[in-house]
Structure formats: C-alpha cells, structure tokens
C-alpha cells in the first residue's frame, strides 16, 4: 500500500516537473482549476495553456464560467482546487500583476474621478513614476480617442467611453499580458473596430491577449487560438488558422439558374442548397471558387455575387458547445 502511494507520489512529481517545464513559453498555464460557490460549480476543471504573444479567445455561452476563470487568473477569486501560473508566478502572486493589464467586464470605476485622475490613480497602483505617467496618459487617451474628455468626470461618460477608459487603464503599464473581459460589449461599431485595432497592435508588439468574449465575429477577426468552454470546462482548443483553411461555405447570388446547373455544382460540393436566386455550397477550400464562377458563367448564369463564408466560428461554437448553453 505504502509502495503504491509512493509511486503515485513519484508520478505526481513527474507531472509537476512536466507542467513547470512547459511554463517557460507560456503566459498562462493552469491545471485542473476548479471553483465552487456553495453547491454551484462555476468552473469545473480548467486546464489550459496560453503561449506568450498569442491572442487567445476564451469562448463560451453566458454563465459558462469565463469571468470566474479570468478572476482566478488575476487573484480576485481563490480557486477551490487546482493550480496555475501567470507569467511564471503562481496564481495570486501580486508581483506578477505588475506586468498584467485587466479590463473588467462591467467597467465600474470610481466615477467621481476625471479621466486623467483615474489613469493617474491606476498608474500609481502600478507603481509608475509621475514623469512616466505624464507621458503615458496623454498617449493612451489619444489611443482610445478620449483626449477631448481628459478633464471630464467619469460620471459623465457614456458606456462606450467608460469601456475605452477601462481599456486605457489596462494598458497603462505596457503589460506583457492583457485580460479583456467582453471588451466591446458596450461599444458602437467604431469603438469595436478601435478595440480590434488595439488588440492587433498589442499582438504585433508581442503582448499576450486573453480575450473573453461571446461576440464570435470579434474573436474570429482578432484571435490566433480559441478555447471553447462550457460549464467551466474547456471542451476544445483550436487554432483559428486551421479553421480558416478548412471547409468553407460560399454563397452565390445569380440569375438564370436551373436544376441541371445546380446539380452540376455537385462535382465541387457535397452540399449544395438552392433557394431561388441564392445558392449555398460547402467547399473544401477557396481554390475552387474561380472554377465555379467559370462554370456558372459558361452555362449562361448571370453571377451577381460569390461570397465565401468561412465556416464561421459561430457554426463551430454551436457544434462544440451545443445549443443548450446560454441559459
């Protein structure tokens, strides 16, 4: 009995060793993180690894435990069990947070402060010297397009403006790792594009971005890799590139279609649906699109549009997570 226990102990040590050696290149690494609130399991078993420099999308229906997971990584919530590292330090180590930025979901801030005072406060909490803040704050206000509102109190800010100032706050310290929890939920299209551009810029600069979102189009555009989470468990992790290179759906708008022509399309696609002037085909890749176009034109079809629709993240989301989530 004692011997078995000893072996088990050795195995655990080896797993630990493996786990630590992986953490060299990882910005975030967690193993079996679990959080229970009373009887309710918010996060069941979170095991994931986010590489340095990648934009990582964390997807799941509402109530899947995304925010709880982020809060555990930031030391706001203590895990019931499991462990993890953020930038090489164990969870909850406040020193690591010097290199971390966080924009919380509901962006509630001390609204009696002006934008500049707010950023100064948080810069002070990052232990940034005054001269550096004097440079950094105007830069950030410009980045998020709030330079005209520097002296305005946050109380007078719209939801979108609060989100922008929250983003500026998360970037004060030029973080190596940024957590963005639903960063665009309150933004208009202009604001969304801004956030997207900022994420791209961060990524180009080597910053790791952990993006918590249920807005799939946004994740699709910005992320390198995504994890699907349901009921606090990572169901699958996949690279978006492989998604993009995989199957795609093409939508065609054309006149003078007939049954024969539509049937002829089956040599490129197993899945052809025709609905009046609209066609929908699933293809193995985009390389065949010109051939299809040529085929249609040669058969006297007036082609108005051919729109490749990547197998969207939404489709994948539904596929992986199922439809019963989000309650």
């Amino acid at each position: 009995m004692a011997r078995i226990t000893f072996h088990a102990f050795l195995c655990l040590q080896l797993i630990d060793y493996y786990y630590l050696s992986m953490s060299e290149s990882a910005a975030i690494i967690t193993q079996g993180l679990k959080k229970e609130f009373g009887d309710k399991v918010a996060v069941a078993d979170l095991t994931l690894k986010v590489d340095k420099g990648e934009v990582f999308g964390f997807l799941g229906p509402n109530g899947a435990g995304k925010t709880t997971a982020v809060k555990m990584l930031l030391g706001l919530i203590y895990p019931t069990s499991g462990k993890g590292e953020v930038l090489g330090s164990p969870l909850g180590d406040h020193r690591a947070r010097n290199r971390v930025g966080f924009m919380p979901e509901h962006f509630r801030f001390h609204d009696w402060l002006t934008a500049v005072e707010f950023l100064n406060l948080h810069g002070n909490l990052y232990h940034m010297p005054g001269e550096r803040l004097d440079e950094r704050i105007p830069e950030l206000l410009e980045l998020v397009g709030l330079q005209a509102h520097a002296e305005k109190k946050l109380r007078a800010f719209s939801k979108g403006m609060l989100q922008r100032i929250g983003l500026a706050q998360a970037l004060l310290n030029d973080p190596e790792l940024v957590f963005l929890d639903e960063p665009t939920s309150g933004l208009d299209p202009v604001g969304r594009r801004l956030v997207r551009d900022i994420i791209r810029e961060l990524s180009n600069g080597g910053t790791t971005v952990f993006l918590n979102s249920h807005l799939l189009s946004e994740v699709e555009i910005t992320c390198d890799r995504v994890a699907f989470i349901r009921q606090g468990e990572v169901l699958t992790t996949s690279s978006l590139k492989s998604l993009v290179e995989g199957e795609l759906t093409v939508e065609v708008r054309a006149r003078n279609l007939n049954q024969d022509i539509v049937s002829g399309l089956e040599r490129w696609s197993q899945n052809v649906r025709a609905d009046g002037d609209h066609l929908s085909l699933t293809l193995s890749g985009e390389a065949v699109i010109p051939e299809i176009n040529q085929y249609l034109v040669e058969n006297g079809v007036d082609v108005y549009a051919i729109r490749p629709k990547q197998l969207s993240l939404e489709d994948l989301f539904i596929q992986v997570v199922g439809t019963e989530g989000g309650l």
Partner: protein
Amino acid sequence: MTTLVIARLTFREAGRRKILLAALVLGLIYLAIYGVGFYYVDQETTRSQFGPGLLELNQIRNFLFMAGLYVVNFLTAMMAVLTSVDTLSGEIASGTIQTLVSKPVQRWEIVFGKWLGFAGMLTLYLLLMAGGTVGLVYIISGYLAPNVLRGLGLLWVNAVLLLGVSLAGGAILSTLANGVLVFGLFGIAFIGGWIEQIGSFIQNQTAVNVGIISSLIIPSEALWKRAAFEMQSPLVAALGFSPFTAASMPSLLMVLYGMVYALLALLLAIGLFNRRDL
C-alpha cells in the same frame, strides 16, 4: 506606498462626495450654537445673585463641557461608521474593487489604506469638534477640564475602534447588513453602559456585570466613560452621578482592551478581505 495612494483616494472621495464639506459646515454650526449657549449660561451663573464660588462655577462649566463632548463623541462615532460602512461592501458590490485588487498590490494595503484615510479624517474631525469645544470653553470662561488630552485620546480610540468594526463588517457583509451590525453593536454598548451606570448608582452588582459584559462585546461606551472620568472635575466625581459622566469607572484594563479591540478589528478586516472572493 500603495496604502498612501488608497488613503489619499479615500480622502479625495470624501471630499468629492461633499462628506467633508457637510461635516465641516455642520461641525461649525454645532460649535457656534454650543459657544453661544455656553456663553450665556456662563454669564448668567457668574453674575447670579447667589454668587457661587469659583469651585461651584467650575462644576457647572465642567458639566456643560462634558455635555458638549458627549455630543462630540456621539457625532464622531457616527462619522466613523457612516463614512466607512459602505467603503468595502460598496466597492465589492459595484465592482470598482476589481481594478484595484488586480493591480500589483496586496489586499491588506487596500484595507489599511482605507483605514488610514478614514482615521485621518476622523482625527481632523475630532480635532475640530473636540478641540473647538475645549477652545470655546477656555476662551469664554478660562476653564480647562483636567486631563483633556488623555480624554480626547480615548475618544479617538473609540472612533477608530468603530471604524475597524465597520471595515471588518464591510469585508463580508452587504452595506445594509453591515450598518445593522455596527449600529446594533453601538446600541448594545450604549444600553449596557447605562445599565452599568445605574447599577453602579444603586449598587446592584448584577446590573454592573451586564454593563461589563456589554463592554466586552464592544468597549466603545466604556472608552467614553473612561474619557469622561478622566476629564470630570473631582466634585462631580464625588457626587457620583450625572448623565454625561461616569459613575462606575472602567478600569485601565478595559481601556487597554479597547485599544487591542480597535487593533484587532483592523486586523480582522484585513483578514476577512484577504480571504474573500471578489
């Protein structure tokens, strides 16, 4: 460093939310009314046809002075609770705490910073109100109660004791529940203190014990009574009973208990906030 940032933030918040202004204006009104009242009473008693001696005059002045300080103690206690009752629970409920705690700071620094900020405010408030009362009495009548500094020190301990309790409650309870808790404790101390006073006056040991137990639950009234004992004039002490003074004097051990209690309340607040999910 972080504690000072948070302390300054706490101060600034009180300023922005007009708490400081309201406290200052009402404090000044209080002092004005007290000063005018004291002046006329003192005038009247001084030139009374009975021609009281200086000793008796000073009894009356001491009585009025203690009445003033009784109100100051009450107002400072209210300030201690009302300003801080919402500070942790409110920030947790609204979520503003998340951007603070996710910074490279330790949680105790936030609690201690808030404590420092509020303790600083309470010190200023006490200096204004109690200092003003002492000053007015002295300017108008030339009377200075004994052991004023020791007495005011005890009022200060009482204020930070309640502050600590209110922070500790706020670390785990909602604002409303915390308010119920702290005022409930305050009420226990208050009624316990009176039972002890009366028990001591009628020499009923059980009633005195009830008071002592309530002082162990929360020693805020005991601190006031010790402060009143320190500052009361010897004759009042000999008379033994007045609503604003102490018939039964809490021991120095109780004072020490009060100080340790105030410190433990702060440590408890830190410990509870440390363990809490935000």
